[in-house]
């Protein structure tokens, strides 16, 4: 079989996984009647590529010392992370129906002590990237070849601590760290431009010293290519991939609508959303 047909198969496989992620995200938020669909959907394609292609992980051994780490710095979009973990078999799929319920491993924000596959608890914005830097330093110092992937929100980059963490990643030459920016341009109160303009984030990360690229965060092909181009590259600096995305991607009435940052669909909305996602098959 040719390389290009292999590549095509991979792209269709990952596209299908992204669709399954979106269905799972909406199902768990609908069941919980609470959660953050907008940013979960904007990150779904990136997460599909990470969890079904890129990450060196073993669902049967979540604590494997040489595994790649993933840090969801924008912790409120945990439905997309939980969907990845469920579909990869870290826990039974039915567990998704316990999101945000008492006693659940699927807390409102990720809890590493409860949920297998969660490498660090997050939820308070701006803090996850620092922990990813710590993991990457440990990996370098211990001579392990794992990498650390961290998903940061564009709104989240308003937190000063993000830039403290980037400085540290650059100082310690962490080319085992890959920062994804989910650049969906919306945040809780309004658009980022209205609440607090973030400027050109790719230029900012570049200026801080990251090896930075800019992609369409809903093109599986572009995400795969971006990761292919940095794998194994020793550049003595952290990588940053600014992924331009659409908040609520895949569900017409959620796309680019601020209100869907943290709102659950009702039954009719849920049915329509699922139909749109399945209809895209």
């Amino acid at each position, binding site marked *: 079989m040719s390389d290009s047909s292999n590549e095509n198969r991979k792209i269709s496989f990952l596209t299908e996984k992204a669709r399954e992620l979106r269905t799972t995200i909406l199902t768990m938020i609908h069941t919980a009647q609470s959660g953050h669909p907008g940013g979960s959907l904007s990150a779904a394609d990136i997460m599909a590529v990470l969890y079904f292609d890129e990450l060196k992980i073993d669902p049967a051994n979540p604590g494997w010392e040489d595994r790649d780490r993933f840090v969801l710095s924008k912790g409120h979009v945990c439905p997309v992370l939980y969907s990845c973990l469920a579909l990869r078999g870290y826990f039974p799929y039915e567990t998704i129906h316990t999101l945000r319920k008492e006693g659940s491993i699927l807390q409102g924000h990720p809890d590493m002590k409860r949920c297998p596959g969660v490498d660090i608890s997050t939820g*308070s914005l701006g803090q996850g990237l*620092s*922990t990813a*830097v710590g993991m990457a330093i440990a990996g370098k110092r211990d001579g392990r070849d794992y990498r650390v992937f961290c998903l940061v929100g564009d709104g989240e980059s308003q937190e000063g*601590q993000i830039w403290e*963490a980037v400085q*540290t990643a650059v100082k310690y030459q962490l080319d085992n760290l890959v920062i994804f920016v989910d650049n969906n341009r919306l945040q809780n109160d309004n658009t980022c431009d209205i609440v607090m303009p973030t400027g050109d984030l790719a230029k900012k990360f570049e200026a801080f010293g990251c090896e930075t690229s800019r992609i369409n965060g809903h093109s599986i092909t572009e995400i795969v290519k971006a990761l292919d181009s940095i794998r194994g590259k020793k550049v003595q600096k952290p990588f940053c991939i600014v992924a331009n995305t659409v908040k609520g991607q895949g569900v017409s009435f959620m796309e680019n609508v601020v209100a869907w940052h943290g709102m659950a669909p009702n039954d009719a909305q849920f049915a329509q959303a699922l139909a749109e996602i399945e209809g895209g098959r």
Partner: protein
Amino acid sequence: MELKKGLPTRDAYGEAIVELGLANPNIYVVDCDIGKSCKTVEFIKQLPDQHINVGIAEQNGCGVAAGLATCGKIPFVTTYAVFGSMRMLEQIRQEVCYPNLNVKIACSHGGFTPANDGASHQGIEDLGLLRTIPNMTVIAPADFASTKKLVKAAAEYYGPVYLRFTRDAVPFIYEADETFEIGKAKMLYDGKDITLISNGDVLSLCVRAREELEKLGYSVRLLDMHTIKPIDREAIESAIADTRGIVTVEDHTILNGLGSAVSDIVAEVGGCRVRRIGIQDQFGESAPYERLLAKNGITLEGIVKAVKELVG
């Protein structure tokens, strides 16, 4: 007890952390640009591969430490008490205490000990702030020997620990072979009239106050409550049963510090009154250490007066 001229407890931290780091490659120091003041210079020299300096970015330093801890490291984030307790308080809560990671927050410049630095650098609320966070252990050692022992105990214990050291010299109280256990108060003297409970840099003041009180005919029990969380409930219950009152003495605001922690237990057990000597809900200023204590009634005379009022 003849109190000998001592050393700052930050110096003891500097010695202990090198000994720990040499013995265990997983011991890390995360500095925030004040390693010179916090005495990690020798650690940097001897163990550069176990050292990280995040610069003037304490919040990030705490997060980096949390990440290191998930990979089996035992990081000591090293800074001043004001920054270690407040600048990175939420990071400590979210990324260290909530996931119960093995991170230590090691802070110099506790209480009024950075006296001439002024109020901005005097960490007078730290112990109270840290004690409210679940999973956190809070320790304020009193002298050089006990600091060395308690830093080592903190490294051996799994979980978040906040440690508070002094900028300036405090008298030697303990011999080097004295043993210490986290959460277990040290009884320096037994007595039946009154119990003095103290920790940190003002324990030596209580040693002197006890001598004065004994001269006046009081039988004084003196406890070093180096760990204010978990507090040694048993030691407080014994003080209630065996003596007629408790006076707490701390270089910390009287709100939510040692006096409050002791009072929490006394309020539940009953049968005893407590006088809290400490910083009177006000900021310090640039002034000599003894003057700052005196302005808050943290003096030998203040302790004697409190005891007289309490037990007659």
